[in-house]
């Protein structure tokens, strides 16, 4: 048996997504922009898929734009929003723990002259609402804060961004990267007070190569690419219908969030209880993190060694987004972890296909690994 516990990296395709994709590959290969019946057939599927995304977000269909995934979505949003508002201000407020697809574009904008405020996180990986409020001024044009951190699962106070923007009478757009949150906790732009969202398909059992951005009606983004009118010119290029149809089918197949959260919380509790029986383990994720992600450190065992060892036993996980030797995780460093914990992190991430047996395999594996590696 294999235990796949790296669902923050990617997830297994659900059956519903596979069937929808096969169907689209076989019979719906027309170009959605074509005038003829074959094209219309694809267009119909495209719009049905869009409506599926809109339904999940409780938003309008015309507020959903398909992309190729999270990285492209974040780029489109960050560059598009700052280009659109650059005459109204120069400040961007974000956090030090964003995914590289937000972090790097903002770094590039900083080099181009934008003023960037990167909010610090505390030891739980959370930014402070007061600091956020203080950072947003009338010169601010974009606030970008992820909903759930991809390495530790910490939930950020995203709703505070809208309040901060209103209090500062700032023209800023509020963006939230919900790649790790979507499908795992309620994501509703109106409640969250956001103008922009980024989603990815393959983190919710859909295929790679699809994703979406939510752009609130009335909000204008300057397109990053040109050469087509698809997706409101925000993402020109013929839409990949099989990937989009698979994405929509995966969303439709998502179970009730409350139900799923309950199950995954039980898995997390089981994992934490099991880890309590082992020595030299520290839990890096805060207790109130989204239970889908649990970050731990196995003190004294380099991540790479433990990951290779577990991989040989059929247990798959990762060390976070930067698993490389010598490259300490930016997120864990921001959280102020000491060197012993920084050199040994493991990220365990669940999905609805994870079972207690998988977690048991992991616990056994870690125990065996400790025996092997800590002996020396």
């Amino acid at each position, binding site marked *: 048996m294999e235990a796949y516990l790296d669902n923050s990296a990617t997830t297994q395709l659900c059956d519903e997504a596979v069937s929808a994709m096969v169907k689209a590959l076989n019979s719906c290969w027309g170009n959605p922009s074509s005038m003829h019946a074959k094209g219309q057939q694809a267009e119909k599927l495209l719009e049905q898929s869009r409506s599926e995304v809109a339904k999940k977000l409780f938003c309008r269909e015309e507020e959903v734009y398909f992309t190729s995934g999270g990285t492209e979505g974040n780029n489109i949003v960050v560059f598009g929003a700052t280009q659109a508002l650059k005459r109204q201000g120069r400040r961007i407020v974000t956090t030090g723990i964003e995914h590289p697809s937000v972090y790097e574009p903002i770094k590039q904008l900083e080099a181009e002259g934008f003023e960037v405020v990167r909010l610090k996180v505390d030891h739980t990986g959370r930014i402070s609402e007061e600091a956020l409020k203080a950072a947003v001024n009338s010169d601010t044009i974009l606030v970008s804060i992820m909903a759930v951190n991809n390495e530790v699962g910490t939930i950020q106070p995203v709703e505070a961004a809208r309040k901060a923007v209103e209090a500062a009478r700032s023209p800023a757009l509020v963006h939230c990267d919900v790649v790790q949150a979507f499908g795992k906790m309620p994501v509703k732009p109106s409640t969250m007070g956001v103008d922009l969202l980024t989603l990815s398909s393959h983190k919710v059992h859909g295929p790679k190569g699809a994703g979406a951005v939510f752009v609130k009606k009335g909000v204008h983004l300057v397109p990053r690419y040109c050469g087509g009118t698809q997706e409101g010119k925000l993402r020109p290029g013929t839409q990949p219908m099989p990937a989009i149809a698979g994405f929509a089918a995966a969303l439709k197949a998502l179970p009730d969030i409350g139900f799923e959260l309950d199950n995954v919380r039980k898995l997390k509790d089981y994992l934490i209880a099991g880890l309590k029986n082992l020595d030299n383990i520290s839990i890096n994720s805060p207790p109130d993190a989204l239970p889908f992600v649990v970050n731990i450190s196995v003190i004294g065992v380099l991540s*790479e060694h433990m990951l290779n060892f577990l991989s040989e036993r059929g247990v798959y996980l990762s060390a976070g987004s930067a698993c490389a030797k010598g490259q300490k995780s930016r997120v864990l460093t921001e959280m102020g972890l000491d060197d012993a914990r920084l050199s040994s992190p493991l990220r365990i991430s669940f999905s609805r296909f994870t079972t207690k047996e998988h977690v048991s395999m992991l616990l056994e594996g870690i125990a065996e690994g400790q025996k092997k590696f800590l002996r*020396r």
Partner: protein
Amino acid sequence: MKEIILLKNGELALKGLNRHTFEEILIQNMRRRLADLGNFQFATSQSTIMADPLDEGIDLDEAIDRLTRVFGFAGLSRAAAVKKDMNVILAVAGEYLASQLLAANSFKVDAKRSDKKFPFNSPQICMELGGILLESFPHLHVDVHNPELTVTVEIRDNYAYIHGNQIKGAGGMPVGSSGKAALLISGGIDSPVAGWMMAKRGLELIAVHFASPPYTSPKAEMKVHSLLKKVARYSGRITLFVVPFTNIQEQIKDNCPEELFTIIMRRFMMKIAEIIAQREDCGALITGESVGQVASQTMYAIACTDAVTSMPVFRPLIGMDKDEVIITSRKIETFDISIQPYEDCCTVFTPKHPRTRPKLEYVEKAESVLDVEVLAAEAFNGVKITVIN
């Protein structure tokens, strides 16, 4: 118009009666490298090899690109082969080299007449052709000392060849002409460069890599594949031997003094590499060591590792600085692969304070608690072989 590739021998030109043997190896190497592009005919004459494409539509640019990485040539040119008739030469040269002539500001004409029956001598060819080119390309001026473009006309037995500037060849000796050697490769920056340097001196390569799962990942092994693929563009096919090394490392770690861990480990590596090298008819081992670079590469440490092998150990980087090595590794395109951060066998269990001046007797004594022969034989029996092209 018929086009061929003219290749000028490098050092080979200096060889005496055995020059033929070298040339045959060189042609065989070229043949292998060009095989999938189409058929070529090769002919040698006076320190030049002519590669004549026999099929229509062979990609000569690709062929030249590959041949710039075949050791044994000082330079190569893509040339037009025309009838040995002065009027034809004068008519064709300007047209054939038009783009190069337009891009240059200064030029000269160089003529080589090996067929002395040709009615014009070299200075005459230069004058005639130079005059015509100046007329057709009035922006040019003649510079015989430092021309941007040298138009060369070579009058040989069957054809006259016209070409522009010569492209630099890879130099060195034909791979295989010096025998075969075993390269110890970890995945770092140095070993691929060392292998490349020795291949350049005519050695055919095999490679030995030590893998220590789970300390090292399958990705570290894939990295070695990618590195060797780059080296093989110069050296030709390389057979890779991956040696399972975990048990040996754990045994050393558990039974020997920590400060000698790396030295003893390297002695094992040499020993096992030698067993493989002997089986494969190699005459030497190759490592990427450089004096003083790390604790295990001090003069004293090298003396300790050398003591386990009776084969010569070639260390072409021995006197080079890291930045010099990096320059070559960038040139042969291994640098970006080498810096991928996977743990390799050399970084597992690295001692905090390694001994930099180890004494051989002391090392041998520390090592004697292990059954070296059995451990080495076991590792050898677990070897995995892959051929890298």
